[in-house]
């Protein structure tokens, strides 16, 4: 969470509001959102006159809209939703609509290191990205995956740069797709490009490319790797920006590559979602060492335990020495940390969260329709109707819990040692 220093970390339990007092004001309520600091809870609802608006801690936004959806708090604590006004769409931030109106907007994205908000937009049947109410000047016939730089100042997207006639398969294979950065397309065209991503210093963009029917590679700032592969998945930059790393399919097996060279020896039957540890000391990914069995691989070494159904993205501890991931085996969800699986399993598990000292692993879990906080494999508190991911005080000993219990929204700060012993 951004602005963690502004959070009130005083321990104690605080009832913020009775949920009924929010929902009673609407004929229907569909979305709940809770601020990262836990101070606010908002709902989006449809009033008797069929307009939509939000209520935050009991206070209605001044304006209401023909239609509204996607009520969320940004990581910087602003409450947003997408709203239709006079048949045009805009973003509403803390109750105030942006100046620009669009035929359509969707898929809000938030910057890592700034309060910037970006959206995909459509105007006059063309597509672009808008950041903080400033739309790209250039628009494209089609656009998919877009991404926002960590500082929120730049955006990149996969864009269609040439017209394509109906069922024109030949033109398609000449390449009509590219990557646009801040609305300006790269010179090179590809059969496909996917998932552009920014370097940590916001200066470079890497993307997956397809250059022939079954030839795939990576491109960084429009300079393609010279090697071609049977397939590639999502690249990542190393934290110092010196390397672009991506899983590639090479001679029938998945391998890890960096800057076009194979870096891991193991041949995986699948490998995806590479992640660097803070500081770049380690590289983790989800891998399948034998067909149908999944695990986390760190620096080319798979954990001993494997799982049948699914393994989700690894999460590193703040010191970079530990890692944990959501795993699923025989349709039961749990967490595996450093290769050791929790004994308890659950109906659903959210991403693991490490404590500030990297010693403990927490997660929001669901069991029999209720939500709980689990730590290192056992339930610590819960039975909540709704529960948001626990927030750990950076460099501190406290934990922020946000939940709905008996119809009340509660914000609670607890000492990690009190809770976990």
């Amino acid at each position, binding site marked *: 969470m951004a602005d963690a220093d502004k959070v009130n970390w005083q321990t104690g339990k605080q009832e913020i509001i009775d949920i009924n007092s929010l929902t009673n004001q609407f004929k229907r309520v569909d979305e709940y959102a809770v601020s990262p600091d836990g101070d606010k809870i908002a709902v989006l609802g449809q009033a008797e006159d069929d307009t939509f608006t939000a209520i935050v801690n009991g206070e209605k936004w001044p304006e209401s809209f023909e239609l509204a959806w*996607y009520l969320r708090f940004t990581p910087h604590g602003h409450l947003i939703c997408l709203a239709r006004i006079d048949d045009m769409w805009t973003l509403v931030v803390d109750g105030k609509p942006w100046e620009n109106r669009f035929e359509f907007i969707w898929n809000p994205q938030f910057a890592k290191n700034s309060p910037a908000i970006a959206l995909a937009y459509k105007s006059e049947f063309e597509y672009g990205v808008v950041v903080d109410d400033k739309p790209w000047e250039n628009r494209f016939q089609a656009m998919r995956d877009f991404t926002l730089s960590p500082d929120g100042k730049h955006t990149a997207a996969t864009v*269609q740069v040439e017209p394509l006639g109906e*069922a024109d*398969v030949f033109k398609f294979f000449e390449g009509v797709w590219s990557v646009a950065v801040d609305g300006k397309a790269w010179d090179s065209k590809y059969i496909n490009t996917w998932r552009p991503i920014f370097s940590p210093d916001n200066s470079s963009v890497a993307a997956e490319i397809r250059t022939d*029917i*079954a030839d795939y590679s990576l491109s960084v700032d429009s300079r393609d790797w010279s090697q071609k592969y049977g*397939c590639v998945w999502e690249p990542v930059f190393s934290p110092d920006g010196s390397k672009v790393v991506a899983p590639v399919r090479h001679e*029938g097996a998945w391998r890890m590559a960096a800057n076009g060279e194979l870096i891991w020896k193991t041949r995986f039957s699948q490998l995806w979602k590479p992640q660097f540890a803070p500081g770049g000391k380690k590289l983790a990914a989800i891998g399948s060492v034998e067909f149908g069995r999944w695990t986390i691989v760190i620096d080319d070494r798979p954990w001993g335990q494997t799982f049948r159904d699914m393994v989700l993205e690894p999460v590193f501890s703040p010191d970079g020495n530990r890692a944990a991931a959501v795993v699923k085996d025989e349709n039961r969800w749990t967490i595996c940390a450093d290769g050791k699986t929790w004994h308890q399993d659950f109906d659903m598990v959210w991403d693991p969260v490490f404590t500030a000292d990297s010693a403990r692993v927490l997660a929001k879990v*669901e069991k029999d329709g209720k939500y709980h906080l689990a730590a290192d494999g056992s339930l610590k508190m819960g039975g909540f109707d709704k529960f948001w991911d626990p927030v750990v005080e950076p460099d501190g000993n406290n934990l922020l819990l946000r939940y709905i219990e008996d119809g009340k929204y509660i914000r609670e700060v607890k000492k990690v040692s009190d809770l976990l012993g």
Partner: protein
Amino acid sequence: MAEVRGFDESKVDDAGLNESIKKLTPEKIQRVVQRVFNKESAARLQVYLNTCVHCGLCAEACHTYVSRDHDPRFAPVSKVRDTIWELIKNKGKVEPEKIKDMARIAFTECGACRRCSMYCPFGIDIAYLILVMRRICNLLGVVPKYLQDTTNSHAATMNQMWVHQDEWIDTLQWQEEEAQFEMPNVRIPLDKEGADVMYSVIAPEPKILAQLLGNMAQIMTVAGIDWTMPATDGWDNSNMAMYSGDFEVMGRVEKLHWETAARLKVKKVVMGECGHAFRGAVYDGPRWLGWQYPPIPMVHAIEFYYDLLKSGRIKVKEKYKEHVTVQDPCNTVRGRGLGHKLRYVIDQLCENFTDIDPRFEHNYCCGAGGGTINCGPPWKPTRMRSTRVKAEQFERTGAGVIITPCHNCHSGIEDIVGHYGLGMHVKFINEIMVDVMEKPEDMG
């Protein structure tokens, strides 16, 4: 019954085959054939080819062969003999013109329906062999134009019909409004994290059959299901790349679909009434990606409706009165054994049902599957020639409505009904269910 006269399959004008072979050289063909035989399919291919004793028991199983008056060229084993077999014999040394013939056979004369495998004493999977041929065609760039275009759409947009991201969301929003005329409290919850069910569909639903989404919203609401649909790519569960031989694109589409379900933290995925999409999302897609089973349970609409009716979450007010029969889609009935559940659903919803014969896993394919209908208008006469047995099967039932819980079957059977003048209507279960179900008072 209607005959397709004056139509010569070998002369069909399909640029995807006719133009692409101009760029081929015998060397390139050989390189690709070697790659597929030696690196991708070696073991299974050899076993099948060495096991076949050419007994011909599989021939009667094939709707193409039977519908074409038992023309031996259309027997399953002949299709393999004239494609894969020939390539193996010649070690891939064939002229481009030959590849065109092989592509025509593989893409338009076999629907990968797997009926023949059931009649083969060795269980040889002819459809698999045909798909290996298609893989070779894909790597050579020789694929019927319209099927290739569908695959290109998957690659560029992650859905089958070039649906833009805004069109998807917009369609769901107007379908929600439409459904609210019927039932004021209907919602289509978008991108709701932690819902029990993600409902996923194939792109023709938002593109041309949007009312099916509105229907499903009503069904979900009455049944009280905690559900959602994604507001980003990954909502399309169909996969024609599986049938054009582009396994890389097939894998990419399925990866995103399953990642989307995981992102939304749903406990299961319910998919709409589609046969090939089920195969792509449950079998072929996961396996290419390295999953032995789908990572999150996936339930086909037939099973979902069955559960809703069986548990009483959906009750029937008054049964549908028309005289109905049914199409058992190959991929869910032969492939998954859902024939009994399908009949339970029909019995609950309909008053007057005449079963098809043969039925269940023995049912004939509608001839639209395996990507054949996606080969587009140039090949429609071919499909019609290959489905006479299907038309006769329907005609014998005397029904007025054919229930088809599969999009491919639906479109293919509409063509059959038109071509053979059957005078029947084709319906999804969803359309009948929404008409006959009890809608509680307080839901409008």
